[in-house]
C-alpha cells in the first residue's frame, strides 16, 4: 500500500496559482512585509473591547443604583427613586391614589425635574392642587450638596402650584417610613402627628390628605396649648402641687383636641401662614 499511496500523493502538489495567491495574500496581510498585519492587533483590540465592556458594565451598575428619593405627597403619595445622574429609576405609590398615579405615569429615565413636573400636572395631583390641598415634596439624599441641588430643582418645579412645602433630609428615616408603609413625606407628617396623638396609626395616615394631617396637627397643637394654659390657671388657684396637676391636664387636652372637628377648621389658616 505504501508505494501506491506514495505515488498517488506525489501527484498532489501545490499549484502555481495557489502559491501565487498565497504570496499576494502574505504581502497584503503584512503590508509589503513592512508592518505587522491587522491580525496581530487582535490582542490589543480584544483588551480594549474588554475594558470597554467592563466600563459599560460599571456604568450600567452605577446608573441603576438609586441614590436619592423624592417623596411627593398631597393625597396621592408617591416616591421617585433617582440615580446619581438625577434620572428617575422607579416610581412607587404609597397609597391607593399614589399607586394608581404611579401606574399611569411614564417618567422612567426622565430627569427628575421633568418627572416632578409630570406628577404635578397629572389630573390626580392637579385636582388636589385646584382644591387648595397641601403639597409636600421631600428630597431625601445623604449627600448635602446633592440635597441642596435637588431641593432647588423641586422648589422651582413646585413654584406656582399653590401651597407647597419643599424640604430636604438625609435618608436615616427612609427605611422606617417604608416599613410603616408610608412615603417619606407622609411618614414625617405621621411622626409629627403621633407626637401629639399617640393613638394615631400609619394606616390611618395613609389615606388622609396632607392637608387633613396638617390641620389635625395644628388643631392638636393649639388645643394642647389651650389645655396647658387651662391647667396652669387651675393650678394657680390650687397652690402647692402645681407640677403634677399640669402634666395630667395636658394629657386630657390632647384627647379633646383630636375629637373636636370644628376646631381643626379654625386652625387651617394658621398653618397656611406658616408655610
Amino acid at each position, binding site marked *: 500500500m505504501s508505494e501506491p499511496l*506514495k505515488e498517488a500523493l506525489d501527484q498532489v502538489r501545490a499549484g502555481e496559482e495557489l502559491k501565487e495567491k498565497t504570496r499576494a495574500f502574505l504581502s497584503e496581510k503584512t503590508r509589503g512585509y513592512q508592518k505587522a498585519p491587522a491580525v496581530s492587533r487582535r490582542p490589543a483590540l480584544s483588551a480594549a473591547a474588554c475594558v470597554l465592556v467592563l466600563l459599560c458594565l460599571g456604568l450600567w451598575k452605577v446608573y441603576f443604583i438609586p441614590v436619592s428619593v423624592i417623596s411627593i405627597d398631597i393625597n396621592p403619595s408617591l416616591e421617585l427613586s433617582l440615580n446619581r445622574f438625577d434620572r428617575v429609576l422607579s416610581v412607587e405609590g404609597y397609597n391607593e391614589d399614589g399607586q394608581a398615579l404611579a401606574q399611569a405615569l411614564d417618567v422612567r429615565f426622565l430627569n427628575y425635574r421633568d418627572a416632578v413636573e409630570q406628577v404635578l400636572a397629572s389630573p390626580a395631583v392637579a385636582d388636589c392642587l385646584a382644591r387648595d390641598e397641601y403639597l409636600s415634596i421631600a428630597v431625601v439624599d445623604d449627600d448635602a450638596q446633592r440635597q441642596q441641588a435637588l431641593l432647588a430643582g423641586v422648589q422651582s418645579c413646585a413654584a406656582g402650584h399653590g401651597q407647597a412645602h419643599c424640604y430636604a433630609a438625609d435618608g436615616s428615616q427612609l427605611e422606617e417610613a417604608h416599613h410603616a408603609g408610608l412615603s417619606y413625606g407622609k411618614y414625617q407628617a405621621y411622626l409629627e402627628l403621633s407626637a401629639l396623638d399617640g393613638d394615631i396609626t400609619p394606616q390611618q395616615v395613609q389615606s388622609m390628605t396632607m392637608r387633613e394631617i396638617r390641620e389635625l396637627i395644628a388643631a392638636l397643637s393649639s388645643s394642647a396649648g389651650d389645655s396647658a394654659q387651662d391647667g396652669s390657671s387651675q393650678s394657680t388657684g390650687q397652690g402647692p402641687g402645681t407640677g403634677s396637676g399640669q402634666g395630667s391636664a395636658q394629657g386630657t387636652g390632647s384627647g379633646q383636641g383630636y375629637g373636636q372637628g370644628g376646631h381643626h377648621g379654625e386652625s387651617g389658616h394658621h398653618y397656611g401662614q406658616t408655610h
Partner: protein
Amino acid sequence: MRSEAEANRVIEQYGDTVRRLCLVHLKNTADTEDIFQTVFLKYVLSSASFESPEHEKAWFIRVTINACRDLLGSFFRKNTVPLDQLLDQPAPMGEDHREVLEAVLSLPPKYKDAVYLHYYEGYTAPEIGRILGKNVNTVYTLLGRARQLLKEKLGGEGDV
C-alpha cells in the same frame, strides 16, 4: 517578522507538504486555500527559530494539522465530496492510486495523520508521537488499526 524571500523559500519548499495535508483533511478547495495561506502567514509572523530543515518541516506539518483540525471543528464541514473535486491537478491518476488514496481519505480523522506521516513522509512512530503530541504506544495502536481498516477496504490487497 520574516522577510519576503524567506516566505517564498518556504512556499516552494513546503507548499506541496502543506497541500497534501490539506487534501488528507479537507473537503474542498476553498478550505484548502484558506488553510494554505493561514499556515504561511503564521510562519511569516512566527519568531520561532529552527535547528534544522527537519525541525522546520515538522513545524509546518504540526501547524497545518492543527489549522485543519480547527477548521474541521465545524459540523457543516463534515460532509464529504468526491475525490475528483479535491484533486485539481491536471495529471490523470491511475486506478490503483485512486483506490488507495480514497481508502486512506475515508479513514476516520484520527488515523489519517499517522498513516500519512508514516507511509508518505516516512516518519517513525516516536517522531509521529512528537509531531502529533501523542504517546508512542498510541501512535503504534493508531497505525495498527489503520492498517487493519485499510486491509478491509482494499480487500486484503497490498502489503499493508
